[in-house]
C-alpha cells in the first residue's frame, strides 16, 4: 500500500524504512537573488531570462546578512538567474566575506559581457570567492544548443579572463569549478572521467584551466520539463530517473545541509522546491522569521522531482554525490 499516493519519492524512501527526508544542521545558506538573467537556457529550472524582473530588494538583502551572522552559517551560496545583475550582489558578497564566510557564486560566464560586469573576475578574486560556472560541454554545438547561439565562444573568452585573474591555476586559492549538465534527456557520465576529459580538451584546444567539474542531472521541472513534454521525452525520462534511484545518494542530498532563500525572502529546502513553490517546513515562511529549529531536523518537502537528485551517482549543487562507479 502506498502511504503517499501522490508522492512516489516518499513511497520509495518509505520502502527503505525512512519516515521522510530530514535535514542535518544547515551550514550553507543558498540565496537566489532573482530570476533576471542575460541568458535564457533551454534547461533552466529557474525559468530565468532577460525579460524577468523578480530581483531581491535591499530590505531582504539586509535580512540575509543578519541571518548569516545570527545563525552561524559557514557558506553563502549565491545563485539566480545571474546574481551579478542584482544591484546589491557586490554588497552581499563583500559583507559575507568580511564575516569570514566562504562565499561561492553560480556564474554563467557570459554575464561578464553585460555593461558594468566587465570587472567581475577582478571583483571575485579581490574577495577570494569561489566561482562555479556553467559550461555544458567543451564543444560549441552542444553548448550553444543548450544555452543559446554564441554562448560557447563568449564563455571561453570569459573563462580566459578568470584564468588571467588567477582562477583555476595551481598556485592560487582561487577556485574555478565548472558545471556540466547533459544537453538533453539523458544522464551525466561519471564525474571523475568527464573532469579529466574536460581538463585535457580545454587545455589542448584553448589553453584554459579549471579546478573541478561538477556533473548535474537535469531536473524535470520548469523549462526543462516543458521541453521534455514537447519533445515526447517526459515519460521515458521520468521512468529512467525512478529506475536509477540510488539510496547511497540520500545522505549527500544538498537539502540536508542547505537552506534556500528566494528573491522575495521566502524559505525553501532547495532551489528546485523554490521553483515548485514547495515551502520549507510545509508552510510559507520568510527569512525574518527563521528559527534555530528550522535549521536542524527539518522535514524536507519532497516530490517526484527529487528522483532527479537520487538517480545514478546522485546530483547536488556540488555535482555527483557518489564519487565512484558510473550510472547503471
Amino acid at each position, binding site marked *: 500500500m502506498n502511504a503517499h499516493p501522490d508522492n512516489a519519492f516518499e513511497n520509495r524512501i518509505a520502502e527503505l524504512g525512512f519516515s521522510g527526508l530530514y535535514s542535518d544542521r544547515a551550514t550553507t545558506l543558498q540565496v537566489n537573488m532573482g530570476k533576471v538573467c542575460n541568458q535564457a537556457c533551454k534547461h533552466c529550472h529557474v525559468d530565468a531570462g532577460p525579460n524577468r524582473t523578480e530581483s531581491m530588494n535591499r530590505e531582504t538583502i539586509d535580512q540575509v546578512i543578519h541571518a548569516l551572522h545570527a545563525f552561524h552559517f559557514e557558506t553563502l551560496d549565491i545563485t539566480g538567474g545571474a546574481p551579478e545583475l542584482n544591484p546589491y550582489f557586490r554588497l552581499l558578497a563583500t559583507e559575507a566575506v568580511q564575516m569570514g564566510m566562504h562565499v561561492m557564486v553560480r556564474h554563467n560566464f557570459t554575464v561578464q559581457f553585460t555593461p558594468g560586469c566587465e570587472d567581475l573576475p577582478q571583483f571575485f578574486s579581490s574577495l577570494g570567492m569561489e566561482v562555479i560556472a556553467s559550461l555544458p560541454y567543451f*564543444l560549441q554545438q552542444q553548448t550553444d544548443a543548450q544555452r543559446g547561439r554564441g554562448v560557447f565562444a563568449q564563455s571561453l573568452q570569459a573563462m580566459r579572463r578568470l584564468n588571467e585573474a588567477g582562477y583555476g591555476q595551481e598556485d592560487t586559492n582561487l577556485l574555478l569549478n565548472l558545471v556540466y549538465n547533459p544537453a*538533453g534527456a539523458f544522464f*551525466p*557520465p561519471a564525474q571523475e*572521467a568527464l573532469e579529466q*576529459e574536460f581538463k585535457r580538451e580545454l587545455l589542448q584546444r584553448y589553453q584554459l584551466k579549471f579546478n573541478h567539474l561538477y556533473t548535474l542531472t537535469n531536473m524535470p521541472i520548469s523549462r526543462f520539463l516543458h521541453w521534455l513534454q514537447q519533445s515526447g521525452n517526459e515519460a521515458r525520462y521520468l521512468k529512467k530517473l525512478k529506475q536509477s534511484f540510488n539510496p547511497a545518494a540520500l545522505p549527500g542530498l544538498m537539502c540536508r545541509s542547505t537552506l534556500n532563500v528566494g528573491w522575495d525572502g521566502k524559505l525553501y529546502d532547495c532551489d528546485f522546491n523554490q521553483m515548485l513553490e514547495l515551502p520549507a517546513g510545509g508552510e510559507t515562511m520568510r527569512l525574518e522569521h527563521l528559527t534555530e529549529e528550522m535549521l536542524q531536523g527539518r522535514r524536507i518537502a519532497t516530490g517526484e522531482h527529487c528522483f532527479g537528485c537520487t538517480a545514478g551517482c546522485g546530483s547536488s549543487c556540488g555535482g555527483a554525490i557518489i564519487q565512484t562507479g558510473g550510472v547503471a
Partner: protein
Amino acid sequence: MAYYDEEDLDRFQEISRERPELFTAFMHWYDAVLQEGALTKREKALIGLAVAHAIPCPYCIDSYTQTCLDAGSNMEQMTEAIHVAAAIRGGATLIHGLQARRVVEKLSL
C-alpha cells in the same frame, strides 16, 4: 502491427516466462560483461553501439545510443564508432569477393 515497438525494451523480462534459468544466466553474464574493467563503460557502450549497427538491431541501437549519451559520448564519437562497424562490414563483404573469384577460377577454362 508494428514489428518494432520502443515499449518492447521494457518487456524484455517477458522472455524469461519460459526457461527462466536461461534468461537469468544470460542477464548475469550480460551485466558482468558491461561492467567497467580493462575497458571503461564508455568504451563498452561505443562497442555496443557499433555492434548494434552491424547487426542491425533497432532495439539495440535505441538502447546503446542512450547508454553512449549517459556515458558522456558525443555524436561525433558515436558516428566514428558507427563508421568502424560499417567499414568492417564493408571490408568483410569485399573480402568475400575472393570466394567468388575462387569459384570463377575453378569453373573457368
